[in-house]
């Protein structure tokens, strides 16, 4: 399968000469088209930093990031924005929905920014809403939605532009287990039925068990890789737990 994302020798340092944090240290991996990949690691290990670098929200210190064969580390801010809007979709732990807009308006916004005609855009939103089962909450404001609904609206917003890659930073982090399961099932369907490529950061072994492959990261370095292969989700889940324990992640992080 074609490579959507290829990260090579990525480094990201924070701070100055006196106090240097190597948030990412020589990270290399790639994600194939249609893959559902996860990134796990303990707190402070550099997961968010990695995602921010890939999502072009943060600049890298050295190394290269290619998305669909295009090098993105050298892009100008204007090209970056365009690239972000057309090739990437985002989901965040705290949803990042605009509180002043209804669900519908939140989802349609990426399309209007890219100048898609209103009629086309509206039809698209409705189709996505059906798929994620959020038709009922389209007219609601974020404060009138449950956490799970908010995250599914955010998911709808992330996929509305048919991005090459969906980046999700702890999407279940603020959800209870039932909502988390529902969201993961939705993402799973998106991945299977529509072939969406997803790269997801998570603390949570249960959430991670929906992935086909997990990259473990420790102190800014890639540490291990787990591939689900033909395993059931249950089997994969226990393998994940094993690695997490090995990593020394505290039990509270594991369901």
């Amino acid at each position, binding site marked *: 399968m074609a490579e959507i994302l290829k990260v090579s020798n990525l480094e990201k340092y924070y701070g100055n000469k006196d106090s240097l944090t190597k948030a990412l240290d020589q990270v290399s991996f790639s994600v194939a088209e249609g893959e559902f990949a996860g990134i796990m690691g303990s707190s402070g290990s550099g997961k968010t930093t990695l995602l921010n670098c890939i999502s072009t929200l943060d600049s890298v210190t050295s190394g290269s990031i290619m998305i669909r064969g295009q090098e993105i580390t050298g892009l100008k801010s204007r090209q970056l924005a365009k690239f*972000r809007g057309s090739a990437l979709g985002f989901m965040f732990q705290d949803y990042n929905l605009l*509180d002043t807009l209804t669900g519908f308006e939140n989802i349609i*916004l990426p399309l*209007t920014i890219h*100048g898609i*005609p209103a*009629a086309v855009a509206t039809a698209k939103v409705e189709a996505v809403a059906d798929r994620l089962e959020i038709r009922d909450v389209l007219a609601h404001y974020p404060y009138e939605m449950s956490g799970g609904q908010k995250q599914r609206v955010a998911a709808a917003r992330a996929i509305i532009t048919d991005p090459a890659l969906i980046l999700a930073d702890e999407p279940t982090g603020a959800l209870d287990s039932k909502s988390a399961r529902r969201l993961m099932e939705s993402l799973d369907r998106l991945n299977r039925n529509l072939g969406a490529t997803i790269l997801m950061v998570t603390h949570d072994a249960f959430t991670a068990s929906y992935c086909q492959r997990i990259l473990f990261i420790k102190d800014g370095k890639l540490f291990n890789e787990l591939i689900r292969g033909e395993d059931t989700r249950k089997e994969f889940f226990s393998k994940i737990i094993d690695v997490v324990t090995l990593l020394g992640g505290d039990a509270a992080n594991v369901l």
Partner: protein
Amino acid sequence: MYFKLSLRNVRKSLSDYTLYFLTLTFGVCMFYVFNSLEAQEVMLSISLSMLEIMHTITKLMNGISIFVSLILGFLIIYANNFLIRRRKREFGLYMTLGMSKHNISRILLCETLIIGVLSLAAGLLMGLFLSQGLSVITARLFEIDMSGYRFIFSLQAFWKTILYFGLIFLIAVSAGTLSISRHSLIELINASKHNETPAVKKPAMTLTLFLLSVLCIGIAYAMVLKYGIATFDRKIVIEGILGSIGTFLFFASLSGAMLGLVQKKPSFYYKGLNLFIMRQINSRINTTYLSMSFICLMLFVTIGIFSTGMGMTGVLNRGYSGVIPFDVSLEVPGADDPWALLAQSGVDLQDYADDFHRFHFYRYDLQALTQGTILKEVADLLPEENAQDIVDRLFPQALDVVALSDYNALMQLRDKQPLALGGSEVALMSQFLWVDADFQSIIEEYVGTDGRLSLGGTPYRVQTEILSEGIVNDSDHLMTLIVPDAVIADCTAVTGALCFNCRGNSAAMQDALTVQLDALIGEGRLPFKEGCVTRNMVQAVMGGSKAIIAFFAIYVGIVFLITSAAVLALQQLSEAADNRQRYEILKKIGADDALIHRTLFKQIAIYFLLPLSLACVHALVGLKVANDVVREVGSLNALQNTLATALLILLVYGAYFLATYYGSKQIMLKNGQRHE
């Protein structure tokens, strides 16, 4: 230690404070300047009459100052509350670190005091220099010399400014402290996380409100246009109340109604970030419509004050040589002679001047001569909107007659060319034409088209040139008729008059005469009361009216303008932090910097323009009516004044707008460095 912490806080949030600080400084400056008027007198060579007027103006400005300090007080308390609200979270943090509410109040007190003392000092300093300039303006308005430059410092104004603003700051601090102590720790910490719930209003309800507001404003407009604003009565109060209610309803429902309408047009609503902007405005107007309405009304008053003020001073500014041809003129009713009457009371006018002319105004006996006799010939040219008024009030006024020889003697006294008049010719004289372009063109039309006047059956030709050189000071006749001496045989004297120019230091002479006559009036020994008009008096009255109008316009207008703009700017700047998160989200979903800046610009522009636009519409209607009123004093060059006003507002308001835009942008750009 509190002082240090406060000082650091003020320095840290300097960008938030800058506009507020500048506004405050300017307010203090205006306050000092207009309270130091009394001290300015020393700089002007001023007559007694002017001194009197200046005292009146000073009293008036003192009264206005109280009103102005209320407005500025409102701004300070509002801004203070606003800044506290923005920082509740920070205070909450201090409290979790073990600081007591008492101590936080102390920090707050320190901060307010630092800002207060700084702006007070800067404002006073600026006022000190600006007040020097005010003397120059005053001198120009009164058309008098400055007796010499002297640096003016008004101790009284200085203390008054400190007292007033000190009090206001104290009140602001207590209000702020109160709002801190009312809140629990948890509320304070969660303050900035709390999302304002948009006031969910049913669309139908919003639309109804909106229509109601348009109805209110419409009725107010109709009433204003129909009844005018010339007389202050119940109608004006009703118009004002209707207009205000309409304005409040308008802003309460505007964005909701607009949103409803725009949403019906998806091709616009779902284009670029339009929907985001609309929602932004809508989410805030729900909570800020009150201040919006106040700002709109204040701007309306500002526009009104500025353009009428400018119009009035413009009218009064055309010089008064025609109105006051002589240093002194005396008039007594009937066939009496003022000279003789004064001599009986022991006043020898030879003490004051060398050359005099005594004459009479006459009433023509053979037929009734009124202003209408002339004007009815050109009645169809009268301005339509107040033709009836003119016919009712002006037409019945008598048209007095003056003999040609008297007129020429007066001209000689003024070193002017004598008038040549044929035996069957008369001439029209008007000292007032310059104030009203309408009348001027009407009467010119009359004399130009071969005007004829029949006196006792004999036809007379009216000279084609209107005489504009006056013959007595401050005449109250629109027109006077100059006739050949032979006609006087058929006349009865109605007013005895006497004109002269003083010898030596004219202003001092006039003052001396006024004092002497006033003394006689006090003893009841003068047979006529208000028949003496000196150049000093007219100058003082005209200069005084100009000064009052100009000072009022500058003082109140500017204070209103900067207060409104400052409130808008404060709201926007303090919202910028909230908006930053929203704009960050927009960035993440693919909006580039240029688009985001454009959106920010539009959003702030709409916010600034909304109250201004309605204020302009209000003002258009108001000014149309005001023009009709001023027309009686003189015709306003409405367009020019409106343009000048617009330019001034554009400058000040625009400066605040740009400062707000760049300030907000700055806050947005502080990427990821949120220091909590």
